[in-house]
């Protein structure tokens, strides 16, 4: 059961955030917590570190501690690169507006969760894409990524 859950988590993370994310998390000693009512997977942890939580639709969302593991990782296969002007705001967890998106690495869809990186390939946070990559080129205003969390904020206190 644990092996099956681990494989599922690894494949889902690889699918959602690109190859090294799932594989790297899969190489760790993970703890899974399940719902007492539905027995469904709720979260993925390492000790007290919360790496990811499971959404009600089955998708897995990377959390602050999970993304922090990739803070020096330059070869994430799926990421959204934002302009330098937007970097401090993303780190604070503020949303990204369409003109500040520089590039998309990998294939992205509207509505999916993505890792936001700076031009130096340093992960800044995670957020939900609201526009298609092709649409962001034509939008001069409006939110393009609804940021869930930025790596600049200390989330340890919340846990």
């Amino acid at each position, binding site marked *: 059961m644990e092996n099956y859950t681990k494989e599922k988590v690894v494949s889902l993370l690889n699918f959602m955030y690109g190859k090294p994310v799932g594989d790297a998390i899969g190489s760790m000693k993970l703890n899974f917590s399940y719902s007492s009512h539905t027995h469904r997977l709720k979260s993925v942890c390492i000790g007290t570190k919360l790496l990811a939580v499971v959404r009600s639709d089955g998708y897995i969302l990377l959390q602050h501690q999970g993304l922090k593991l990739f803070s020096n*990782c330059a070869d994430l296969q799926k990421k959204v690169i934002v302009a330098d002007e937007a970097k401090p705001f993303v780190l604070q967890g503020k949303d990204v507006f369409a003109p500040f998106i520089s590039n998309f690495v990998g294939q992205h869809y509207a509505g999916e969760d993505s890792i936001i990186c700076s031009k130096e390939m340093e992960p800044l946070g995670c957020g939900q894409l609201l526009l298609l990559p092709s649409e962001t080129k034509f939008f001069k205003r409006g939110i393009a990524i609804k940021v869930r969390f930025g790596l600049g904020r200390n989330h340890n206190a919340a846990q």
Partner: protein
Amino acid sequence: MGLGSQEIISAQEIVIKCHDRNIIISSPQVLKFIVQGQTIYQIIGGSENTEIAGSHHNIQEPEIDKDDLSFVCTQANVSAEIAKRALIESKGDVAAALLKLSNKN
């Protein structure tokens, strides 16, 4: 062509930093144009040298965080020395270090 103003810049050395090497152009002639609002630099002549990035004065060992080191030690079940080496090889990337160590085992 719409070529705008031309300016000659007296440069002593130009270093183009690439991912794996640095291209050093000594005593070049540099011309600066402004064409339709965009600035274009043209480098002419000079002697060109190539050096591998980080070959001499650029050697920098990445700073290894103690938390990262202990995390890699416990997760990969390896000694601190092996974990440190893996972290240095992966330039401080915890995930890459763990993947490297798990592939070795």
